[in-house]
C-alpha cells in the first residue's frame, strides 16, 4: 500500500497543518512516511508545495516522481494546477475554489475552473465559504482535508483522532470546530462521488 499526496497553496495559507494531521494518522497506524515541505523565501506569499508520501514499506525519495501522485490537495485553485504533471492518470485533484490573488497577472477564475473540469477526477469546493458558515472561518484547511479524505485511505475515525491529537492542546472547542469542518468537507466529496 502507498499513497502519495501533493499539498499545494500559497505561502502563509498553512498547508502544513493538513500535512501534520495526515502524518499523525500515518504514524499512529505504524506506516512509513516522508514529507517534503517548502520553507524559506517562498513562504512570503509565493507558491508552496509539500510532498506527503505514506507507505507500508520504507519510503525512499522525499519527492514524488512525475505521474506518481494519487492526490493533489490544494487550498487555492490556480495552485492546484501547477503540479498536474505529478498526478497519476487516475488520481484525484481536490481544490478549494477561493482564489488568493497577490500577483498582477492572476488569471480569470473561469479559465481555472475550465481546466479543473477537464480532469477526469476533480473536486472543486468553496472551503472558505463552508468554513464561514460553520462559524469557523479559519477552518477551511480542515474542510479541504475532509473533502480529500475519501481518497486518502484512512477511516474517519483515524482522521478525527489525528485532528484531536494535533489540536488537543488548544482545547476541546478547537478540536470540535475542526472535526466539524472536516466532516463538512467530507460530505461534499461523498455526495460528488455518489453522483459520479
Amino acid at each position, binding site marked *: 500500500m502507498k499513497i502519495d499526496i501533493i499539498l499545494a497553496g500559497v505561502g502563509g495559507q498553512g498547508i502544513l497543518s493538513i500535512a501534520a494531521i495526515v502524518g499523525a494518522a500515518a504514524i499512529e497506524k505504524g506506516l512509513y512516511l516522508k514529507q517534503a515541505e517548502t520553507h524559506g523565501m*517562498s513562504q512570503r506569499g509565493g507558491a508552496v508545495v509539500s510532498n506527503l508520501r505514506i507507505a507500508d514499506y520504507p519510503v525512499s525519495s*522525499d519527492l514524488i516522481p*512525475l505521474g506518481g501522485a494519487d492526490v493533489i490537495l490544494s487550498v487555492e485553485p490556480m495552485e492546484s494546477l501547477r503540479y498536474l504533471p505529478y498526478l497519476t492518470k487516475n488520481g484525484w485533484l481536490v481544490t478549494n475554489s477561493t482564489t488568493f490573488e497577490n500577483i498582477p497577472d492572476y488569471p480569470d477564475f473561469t479559465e481555472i475552473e475550465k481546466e479543473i473540469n477537464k480532469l477526469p477526477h476533480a473536486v472543486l469546493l468553496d472551503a472558505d465559504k463552508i468554513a464561514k458558515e460553520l462559524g469557523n472561518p479559519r477552518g477551511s484547511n480542515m474542510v479541504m482535508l475532509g473533502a480529500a479524505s475519501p481518497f486518502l485511505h484512512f477511516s474517519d475515525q483515524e482522521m478525527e483522532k489525528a485532528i484531536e491529537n494535533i489540536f488537543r492542546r488548544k482545547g476541546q472547542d478547537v478540536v470540535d470546530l475542526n472535526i466539524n469542518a472536516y466532516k463538512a468537507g467530507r460530505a461534499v466529496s461523498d455526495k460528488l462521488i455518489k453522483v459520479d
Partner: protein
Amino acid sequence: MSRNLLLGVEAIGQGAIDGGISGVYAYPGTPSTEITEYIQINPEAVRRNIHRQWSSNEKTAYEAALGMSYAGKRALVCMKHVGLNVAADPFMNSCVTGVHGGLVLAVADDPSMHSSQNEQDSRFFGKFGMVPVLEPSDQQEAYDMVYEGFELSEKLQLPVILRITTRLAHSRSGVVNRPVKPENNLKLPGNPKQFLLLPAFARKYYQGLLGKQSEMLQLSEKAVWNRYLDNPDKSLGIICCGIAYNYLMENYVGQECPYPVVKVSQYPMPEAMIKKLETSCDEILVLEEGFPLVEEQLSDYFGKGKKILGRLSGALPRAGELNPDHVARALGREVKSSFQVPGVVANRPPALCQGCGHQDVYYALNVAIEEIGRGRVFSDIGCYTLGALQPYNSIDTCVDMGASVTMAKGAADAGLIPSFAVIGDSTFTHSGITGLIDCVNENTNVTVIILDNEAVAMTGGQESSAKGKIEDICAGVGVEPQHIRLVVPLKKNHDEMVRVISEEMNHPGVSVIIARRPCIQKIARDKREKAREKEA
C-alpha cells in the same frame, strides 16, 4: 522503539543534543535555520542550558564554536552554504589547528537556489580543508551522523562537516533517538600551543593534517554509512552520494536495483569500494547532489578510461537539484506524465507582505531619486531584496551580505554620486559595519538606508543582534550625529521620508537613514511564542 517525525534539520538538532553538545553557534540561513531554532526551544537543551543564542554572522559563530572546542567541550556550528564563505577563514585554519572538544559544522546547501543567491557544493570545503565530510541520505542518518560525529571529530582531532541539502533539511521522516551522552568537562588542550598558528607551529600542524589523511580514508572504508551493494548486471555501476541514493532506490520500488551500487555518505571517498566497482562494471554512473565533485575526480582527462556518466557527461542536468525523474532518465527509464501544466497558471514569486514597512521606504526612495535617474541603489540580502521586483523596482544590486555599503562606496569612488546603500538591520550587523567604517574613513559620499524591522525577517523572524543599537553603532564608528536620521516607514510619513532622503542625498559625505518599524510577521511570531510559553 518510537519514531519521532522530524525534519532533517530537527534530526540534526536532536542528534547534537543527544550527542552531548554544550553549545550551538549559528547565523540564520535557509535551509539551516531550524537546526538552531529546534535546539533553542528543546526542553533538554533548555534544562542543560546549552548555549543556543544567535551569533552576528557565520564567522563569529564558527570562531565561538572553536573556542568552545578549545575549552574541551562539544560544539555544533550551523550555516547555509554561502555562510561558509564568510566563515571560510576560521574554518580553513581550524583544519590546521585541529580541535579539542568535538566540533561538527552542519552546512546546508541549496541546489536549485530555492532561497539563495547561488548554488555551491560544500563538499568542496571538506576537500579544501582536508577533513571528513558526512553526507546523510535520510533523516535517521542525519541524526546518527551528528550523534557520532563528535566522537569522530575528537578521534581525529579535526572539525567534521555534515553536509545536507534543502530537500533533506526540509523533509520529515521517522527518527529513532539514542541515549543522551554526557557533556564533556571543561579542559584545556593537551598541547597548550595547539591553537597557535605562528608559521613555525603551523608548518608542523599542517604536516600533521596531511598525516591524518590515510586514517581518514580507512575510516571511510569502514564507515557504516558507506556500502557496496553487489548486483548481477555489471553493464553499469552506480555511485550514489547522500540523498541521491534514495532517488535511485525510488526507481526500483518492490524490486532490486539490477546494478552494483556504492553508497557514499562519508568522505574522503571509500577508495577500495569505488575501485572494486570500476573493475567489475563496464561504465560508472555518478549520482550526486550539487557539483560533479566525485564525477570529476573519477573522470580521466584524456578519456582513455572507463566511461563515467553524470552531471558533466550530460546524463544528468549540470545545474539544480536532483530528483527521481532525473535519475530515471539517466537510467534510460521512461518518465511519463498524464497531464500538463495548463497555460493559465501564472508564476507566483514571493512578495513583500501587505503592511510591510520596506514598501513605504521604497515608495519614498523612488520619489526622492526620480531626478537623479536609475542605477544607483546598491542593496543587499533580506526580505527587502524583493524591492527589486514589481511594483517597486527600487534596487539595482544584491550580491552578498554587506555588499550594499561597500559596493556603493566603490561606485562613489568611481564617480557615481550620489549612490545609495539599502541594507537590513541584521545584514548591517552581519557585515555592514566594517564597510561603513571604510566610508567614514574616507568621508565617502554615500547614503546608507538601514531598513530596521528589528528582526531577521527573511529567515523567519529571529532576534536581530542589531536591535536597539544601530544609532550607537553608527555614531560609534564615526558617522556625524546630524547625519544619522531616524524615520518611521508608514504611509502617513511618506512626504517626510522623501524630504529626509533628499536632504541626505545632497549631503557630500556619509549619511545614515534608519527606517524603523517592527516586522509585522515578527510581531505575530512573538505572540505565538508567548502563547506557547504560557502553555508550557
